[in-house]
């Protein structure tokens, strides 16, 4: 007994910080996801000429909490013919994989739980892909046709697009030669240019594939509401359902973070090494002050005293954040925290922009059909990504031969990207030709993918 306690103490002494971070992630992430959902609903409402949630809290700011409470106290239904153990396990698997992959990410140089694992990106991508087990098992365990079809679609889709996404990541990784997340961002800092400039086609492929991987519109077929009711989630309700939901949105954060790290310069400020652009350091605090000002201006319009106080609290919170953001820039004492605080801001900013793009797509365009989705994946994205790896590789050899660095590398990588694009157009044209004759005959075996 003594030994066990001692071993535990030793373990805690060594790993208290990551454990704490892990706890924070598990505790805070649902809240973050809740607010992402709120933002999504608000954005959707804005694009659709309506208001969105407005009732719970001022401007619906407490809606996520109300939703969470509602889901928690809902009746827990397990269908009679369901495989109870698997039904219980599946959402946990999904959400566990999603939360675990967060551990590998670096939100700013100061905040990373699994510090400096040398297979960083591979770990994140691999673990987050494990979430598909939860979806397949959940669909199978429900013993319902809709669920089964949803989960089959989901697995086929993930397998197909994981290939393209992986290839796109390889093109990006060729530029750094490392999988370590910190080293990847540092390489971009050293070159002074983000990899999205050097490998735009890879970024594009990853963008499309990551939307498909996270089952977001226009690739949200596994849960296509109008066809499969709710896909693999049909039989799930209450908290189990919300676990799936949590997993889906966490996966969105994960793929956005991977894209941000590898292609968008991670936590680097735009033009981090150019002194001329140092004024950009004032953008984060000004942004927060703007939000605070907006909240202040809305305060008198709130219907009740409680809501006015709430709005004031939000405004002052934003103001405090602005102060925290501005301190490292103006106060010499706070200088050491600059990288951590501003790095965190820029990382979250870029991830948000990426997620915003996801949402924007969802509101704008219709849904693909399954055979079209598979065709896009196998006949377009995968060939293109393979070609792109080749082209980027050649471009890198050429640029190292001429000893090009930073922006000068654009001289070779831009032609390379153009070549890749031409290949893409050729693939598209060939695909359309071959498809013209057998429009409807091709799709019979798409689960084989």
């Amino acid at each position, binding site marked *: 007994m003594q030994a066990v306690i001692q071993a535990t103490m030793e373990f805690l002494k060594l790993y208290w910080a990551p454990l704490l971070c892990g706890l924070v992630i598990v505790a805070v992430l649902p809240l973050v996801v809740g607010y992402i959902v709120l933002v999504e609903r608000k954005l959707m409402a804005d694009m*659709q000429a309506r208001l969105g949630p407005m009732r719970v809290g001022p401007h619906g700011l407490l809606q996520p909490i109300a939703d969470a409470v509602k889901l928690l106290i809902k009746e827990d239904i397990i269908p009679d013919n369901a495989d109870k153990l698997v039904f219980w396990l599946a959402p946990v698997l999904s959400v566990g994989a999603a939360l675990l992959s967060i551990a590998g990410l670096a939100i700013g140089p100061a905040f990373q739980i699994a510090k400096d694992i040398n297979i960083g990106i591979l770990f994140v991508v691999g673990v987050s892909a494990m979430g598909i087990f939860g979806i397949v098992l959940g669909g199978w365990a429900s013993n319902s046709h809709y669920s089964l*079809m949803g989960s089959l679609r989901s697995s086929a889709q993930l397998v197909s697009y994981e290939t393209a996404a992986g290839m796109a990541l390889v093109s990006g990784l060729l530029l750094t030669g490392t999988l370590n997340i910190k080293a990847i961002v540092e390489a971009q800092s050293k070159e002074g240019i983000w990899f999205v400039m050097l490998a735009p086609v890879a970024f594009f492929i990853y963008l499309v594939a990551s939307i498909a991987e996270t089952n977001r519109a*226009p690739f949200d077929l596994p849960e296509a509401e109008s*066809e499969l009711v709710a896909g693999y989630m049909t039989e799930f309700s209450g908290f189990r359902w919300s676990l799936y939901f949590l997993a889906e949105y966490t996966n969105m954060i994960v793929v956005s973070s991977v894209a941000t790290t590898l292609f968008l310069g991670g936590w680097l400020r735009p033009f981090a090494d150019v002194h001329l652009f140092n004024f950009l350091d004032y953008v984060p605090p000004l942004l927060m002050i703007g939000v605070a000002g907006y909240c202040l201006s809305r305060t008198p319009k709130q219907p009740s005293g409680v809501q006015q106080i709430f709005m004031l609290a939000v405004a002052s919170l934003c103001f405090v954040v602005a102060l925290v953001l501005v301190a490292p820039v103006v106060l010499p004492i706070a200088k050491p925290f600059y990288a951590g605080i501003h790095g965190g801001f820029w990382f979250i900013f870029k991830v948000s922009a990426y997620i915003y793009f996801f949402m924007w797509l969802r*509101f704008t*365009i*219709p849904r693909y059909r399954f*055979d079209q989705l598979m065709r896009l994946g196998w006949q377009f994205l995968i060939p293109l990504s393979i070609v792109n790896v080749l082209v980027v590789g050649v471009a890198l050899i050429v640029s190292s031969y001429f000893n090009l660095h930073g922006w000068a590398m654009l001289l070779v990588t831009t032609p390379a990207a153009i070549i890749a694009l031409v290949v893409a157009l050729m693939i598209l044209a060939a695909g359309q030709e071959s498809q013209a004759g057998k429009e409807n005959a091709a799709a019979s075996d798409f689960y084989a993918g």
Partner: protein
Amino acid sequence: MGAGEFGNRERAVKRVAAEPETEGETTLSSEATTENKTLLGADELIINMGPQHPSTHGVLRVKLKLDGERVIGSECIIGYLHRGVEKIGENRTYQQFAPYVDRMDYVAAVSNGLGYCEAIEKLLVVEAPPRARVIRTILTELQRIASHLLWLGTHALDIGALTPLFYCMREREEILKIFEKYCGARLTTHAFRIGGLQYEAYDTLEKDVERFCKDFESRVAEYETLLTQNRIWIGRTKGVGILTAEDAIAFGVTGPVLRASGVKWDLRKAAPYAAYDQYKFEIPVGTTGDTYDRYLVRMEEMRQSRLICLQAIENIPAGPILAKVGKVLKPPPGEVYHAIEAPKGELGYYVVSDGTVQPYRVRIRPPSFINLQAFDRMVRGHLVADVVAIIGTIDIVLGEVDR
């Protein structure tokens, strides 16, 4: 299916109650595989879409036989919203029955009312005064736009485009406001009376309609920017649910579904009623009869309806709004069939009078019900995702299918 459907259905229910394992009727035959516990092992899957399903537009129930995701058979089961409207007609006076017809196609109540009122007028051998006829035309065309807007929004939603629905609802709201100002009701309006109108047009009717028409042109263009040239939209609708002109005629399909198949048949031109003979408008027709064509036809129809409204408000004749009909309607014994071009197709009323105050028989030809018969032909060989696109493109309203 058809008129005998209900009889078959009853028997089917009894059979299922006795022996739950044997589902399936004529089209699906007895090779049902539902008892196969391991779903993955089944070659054919029978999936039950509806009556509670997000995209069956009400309480339509579709039994689909699937091979993987490919549809190899389908059966529509209807009747969940049956209220016996035709039978009710036999037990009400002619005026009393008029509000009931609003409840059939409840998203196009004005059109339903127009058809019924004109049918009874034909039976009475009276004619509505010119002023009434023009106002009827305006309201009916507005209703057509509203109905098509609702179709567009839900159809786009079924295919996965979330946003057009709300834009469509925004414009539909304007139309409903006009209805509300005119007669106090928004959906089940009962806007017309046998012999003309009950209410005089309110003062700013012309202005309201004109303002709506002015805005509406750019709004249709807005929907088109979201959908018409969208690659995914084209991919999802082109070549899906093709209905040839021969098939369409054989099934008795009418309305935009028929016109999209290339048949130029519109009762507003073929047998003008109300005041349609006074206005210039085009009848859009499609070529291939697929979902995309039906989409284009309905979009163009909205534009044409707008033009009709604009022409009509220019010159609304003065005069009485109600022809001389008695308080108690006793049409001479006889029968009449009168059909109008409702938003969804030919809406016909066959009314038999025996000289009393109540109709002897009211038979209604609902366009949705008859258009739905072509569903199986359109859906075979397509994927599950296309099923919802095809249900959407037929534009059914279950209140009218089941009556």
